[in-house]
């Protein structure tokens, strides 16, 4: 799937920034991945492990935080989280007009290195 190209993107971004900060070894990279995206944390970890040998990431660990979508019913204003994404239905009143906030983010939160 596309996790490999996403991860190449991540490494490039971090490498560029590390260069500017005169960092030549990365210890940790943290990603935030929304629940509604199609990127699988396990595949991201796999891609990271596959790409890191021989680079400044050789000894780095990857942490992936999954971000839940926050939902609010436009009728009764009930706020809720999606446990499993199969349909946007208000658990309180059954309304399907739901405002969704977040859950589709994908970003590098921070990295650590020296």
């Amino acid at each position: 799937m596309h996790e490999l190209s996403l991860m190449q993107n991540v490494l490039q971004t971090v490498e560029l920034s590390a260069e500017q900060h005169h960092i030549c070894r990365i210890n940790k990279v943290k990603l935030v991945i929304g629940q509604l995206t199609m990127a699988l944390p396990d595949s991201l970890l796999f891609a990271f492990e596959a790409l890191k040998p021989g680079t400044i990431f050789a000894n780095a660990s990857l942490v992936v935080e999954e971000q839940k979508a926050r939902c609010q019913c436009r009728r009764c204003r009930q706020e809720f989280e999606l446990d499993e994404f199969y349909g946007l239905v208000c658990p309180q009143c059954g309304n399907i007009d739901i405002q969704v906030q977040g859950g589709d983010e994908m970003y590098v939160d921070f990295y650590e290195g020296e």
Partner: protein
Amino acid sequence: MKVKLESRLLGANELIAHNNRNMFSSRGILVINLMSSPGSGKTTILECTIQELVKQIKIGVIEGDLYTDQDARRIEQQGVEVVQINTEGTCHLDAQMICHAYQKLDASKPQLLFIENVGNLVCPAEFDLGEDLRVVVISTAEGNDKVTKYPLVFRRADVVLVNKTDLLPYTDFDVEKVKNDIGLINPSASIFLVSGRTGEGMEAWICWLLQQSKNKLLSMNGTSYLQMAEGRK
């Protein structure tokens, strides 16, 4: 040392997609991104659609395919300009590929640009190309559960085309269930039932599409719309 980045993984793609969108808008081009699983009927629907529209409107097509140019050849037979993108194993198109490919079409001044994405319901959903409409094809032969199994692509769809309706009698596909599932995650999506084999239902989809293209032209300023309409005669 800890460095806070907060840089978006697809930030680069989103930037290029944004530029594509502005460039297409400035030319009044309506851009359609066609997505589906392999074999749902994207190319067949394109063939039917182009056949109807080719006399009324200038059409360009970008064909995404892993390795071959078979679909591009099929489309070429319809007498429209086609550019092939071979992704060489990458499972989706991205905005940069579209930007490149379109340069080869610009001279032919299309008003309607179709992009056939790589057959895959997962990855293409994540990549904005700068399109106006995301059209997802689902066929009656692939089972009832696609909407709930691949919610992202359906959540972001503007149109869902349910294809191969001629096969309905031979499958357990439940049109009402699928409509309902789409309604739950994406109530504003337009749904059309079509058959690329018999042509049934194509008229409604094509009329709708033509209207969208007119709206797009009208959203530019009035004079340039008139100039373009004149230019096509």
